[in-house]
């Protein structure tokens, strides 16, 4: 029988890192409080015994306040655990001990793991773990989970654990004074010096914008070449397949090769490179501990918008994937503010839409010097407009359907930590590349088949696709788009990655260019189909402001447990997008 082992502790003490070290799994880790919002479990095998290790979200006490904490405490109280491992941060024992003592007093099957011993050492903090064990009356194991030190001993203790006494008779202050010796320089240590620059009045916000722009620029510049390469690769295969199956029936030649395979090729060639580059760059910032600083820097703006500053964390997660962003809103304590964060999360372009934005920006930035920088600036502007719209919509929501008192803002600023390049690369490959390829097959293939059928089945001598596009065209024209673009957005409901590929499929359905060397060349293709800079801007705006993808909608339903809020989350960004597109289109046309 597998025995259950729970990992509990304050947020950001390295529970997930220990979990990964024990189970060999690859649970997400990040340098901020609230990274883990749901339980993760994995199996550890040791000396013939098998243990189920459960990684709980971080908690500060046994009285939960936010949703992620509620989950952890419920699990702690209800699970029949063989053993509870309390993970403590050696650099912050004065606070961590409060929870450890509470848990030790409640349960008799506790061992304590003092993690981040290396960091404490560097800060001039020494922990007497022997003495700590004596005073807490439990086994205490010092670890450095990131380098794997102490993990073998921890496994051994999990295996050989006997009941602990659990009665601890001194106050945590007393334990702290006896076991921890610190000559830490609180005011002038490295982290404080960095903070004084990164969160200063002068440089705080400019550095943030510069970082965003840099990341986008590296993404765009870096994606160009692999995109062209992948395009050649897929076109080569497509040509080869077409020749091989030249005599076969229309289903194989048309539906499978021109429909399914070509769409797959588009999605991988156009969407994958930017996603694969952006994701690791963003993870570096996350591991550094920069995200909570962004929340700290922008607090006054959130305060004015009547929203919770922790929302920026879910917004940042939304840049990777909106569904992940929506789940990460669990760290927001107040229900109303959490709903605001969920409804507005879609205004942050996820990785898939973000690749679309890059693509669209190339339409009106043609050739010349510094193309990638200009595109980066345009996409930065697009993301900032998303942030601005988030603030505006939050303000409106918090003054209408989600009225309520603003709750407090309490956020831990973690120590800066060096990112682990290998872990980031491994995670990016596993999560982005494999994930995108999987989604490409799962979503783009059927969409490719559907679009090919629509293009090739005619009714009254006009293809079904043309019928749909013609039907949507008058409305789309008002929004500065055309019927095909709007059709693509609607067909892109399952996944935003396929919107641009569908547009390209619609235009190249009857042959024509399907191979390209750079993203800029694709821009030329769109221009050949009557795209102007107005079309591109409106398409960017609608890409930024439209209904969440199917996965996000399902996540919203699951997180809010209400159809009403799911529908509102669908309507709010869509209506915003339609209004904005119509206004922008109208103004630009009047000016032109």
């Amino acid at each position, binding site marked *: 029988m597998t025995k259950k082992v729970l990992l509990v502790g304050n947020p950001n003490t390295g529970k997930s890192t220990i979990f990964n070290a024990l189970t060999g799994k690859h649970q997400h880790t990040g340098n901020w409080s609230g990274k883990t919002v749901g339980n993760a479990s994995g199996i550890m095998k040791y000396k013939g015994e098998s243990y189920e290790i459960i990684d709980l979200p971080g908690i500060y006490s046994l*009285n939960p*306040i936010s949703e992620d904490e509620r989950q952890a405490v419920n699990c702690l109280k209800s699970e029949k655990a063989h053993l509870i491992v309390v993970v403590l941060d050696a650099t912050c024992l004065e606070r961590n001990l409060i929870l450890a003592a509470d848990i030790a007093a409640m349960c008799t099957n506790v061992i304590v793991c003092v993690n981040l011993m290396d960091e404490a050492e560097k800060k001039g903090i020494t922990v007497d773990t022997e003495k700590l064990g004596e005073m807490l009356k439990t086994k205490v194991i010092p670890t450095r989970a990131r380098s794997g030190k102490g993990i073998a001993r921890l496994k051994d203790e999990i295996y050989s654990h006997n009941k602990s006494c659990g009665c601890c008779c001194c106050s945590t202050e007393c334990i702290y004074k006896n076991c921890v010796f610190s000559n830490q320089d609180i005011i002038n240590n490295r982290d404080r010096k960095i903070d004084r620059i990164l969160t200063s009045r002068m440089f705080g916000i400019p550095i943030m914008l510069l970082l965003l722009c840099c990341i986008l620029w590296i993404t765009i510049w870096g994606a160009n070449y692999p995109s062209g390469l992948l395009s050649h690769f897929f076109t080569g295969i497509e040509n080869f397949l077409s020749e091989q199956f030249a005599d076969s029936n229309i289903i194989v030649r048309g539906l499978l090769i021109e429909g399914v395979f070509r769409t797959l090729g588009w999605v991988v060639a156009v969407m994958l490179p930017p996603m694969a580059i952006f994701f690791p760059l963003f993870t570096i910032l996350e591991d550094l501990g920069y995200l909570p600083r962004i929340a700290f820097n922008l607090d*006054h703006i959130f305060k004015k918008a009547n929203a919770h500053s922790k929302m920026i964390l879910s917004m940042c997660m939304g840049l990777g994937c909106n569904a992940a962003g929506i789940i990460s809103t669990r760290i927001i304590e107040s229900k109303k503010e959490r709903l605001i964060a969920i409804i507005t999360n879609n205004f942050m372009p996820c990785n898939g839409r973000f690749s679309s934005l890059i693509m669209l920006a190339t339409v009106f930035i043609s050739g010349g010097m510094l193309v990638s920088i200009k595109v980066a600036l345009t996409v930065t502007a697009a993301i900032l407009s998303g942030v601005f719209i988030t603030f505006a919509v939050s303000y409106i929501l918090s003054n209408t359907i989600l009225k309520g008192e603003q709750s407090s*803002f*309490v*956020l831990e600023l973690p120590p800066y930590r060096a990112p682990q390049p290998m872990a980031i690369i491994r995670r990016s490959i596993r999560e982005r590349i494999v994930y995108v390829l999987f989604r490409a097959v799962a979503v783009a293939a059927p969409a490719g088949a559907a679009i090919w059928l629509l293009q090739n089945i005619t009714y009254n001598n006009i293809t079904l696709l043309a019928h749909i596009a013609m039907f949507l065209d008058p409305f789309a024209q008002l929004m500065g788009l055309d019927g095909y673009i709007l059709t693509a957005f609607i067909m892109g409901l399952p996944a935003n990655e396929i919107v641009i590929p569908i547009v390209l499929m619609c235009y190249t359905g009857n042959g024509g260019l399907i191979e390209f060397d750079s993203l800029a060349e694709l821009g030329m293709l769109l221009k050949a189909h009557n795209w102007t800079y107005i079309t591109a801007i409106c398409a960017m705006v609608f890409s930024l402001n439209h209904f969440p993808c199917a996965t996000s909608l399902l996540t919203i339903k699951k997180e809010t447990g209400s159809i009403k809020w799911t529908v509102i989350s669908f309507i709010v960004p869509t209506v915003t997008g339609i209004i904005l597109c119509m206004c922008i289109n109208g103004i630009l046309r009047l000016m032109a």
Partner: protein
Amino acid sequence: MNNVISLTAVPINTAVFIFDIDESPCRDRLRELGFTKGTRVIPLHANPGKSAVAYFVRGAVIALRNTDADTIYVSAKESCHD
């Protein structure tokens, strides 16, 4: 001798000790983060909009909005009422 002021009135990099915390919705959160009577707190730096300040408390750095920090009363000396 023992002047009690609100935490927001404390100059940066000055160590003070918590004397009392007002009843408020965020009191529980503050308590579990280690803002309890007698605890040493050091304000470290304000954010760009000056709406929040980062504090050193019990080994961690915690950012608090000024409206919340206003509910915490501190004195320059460790209080001796416990």
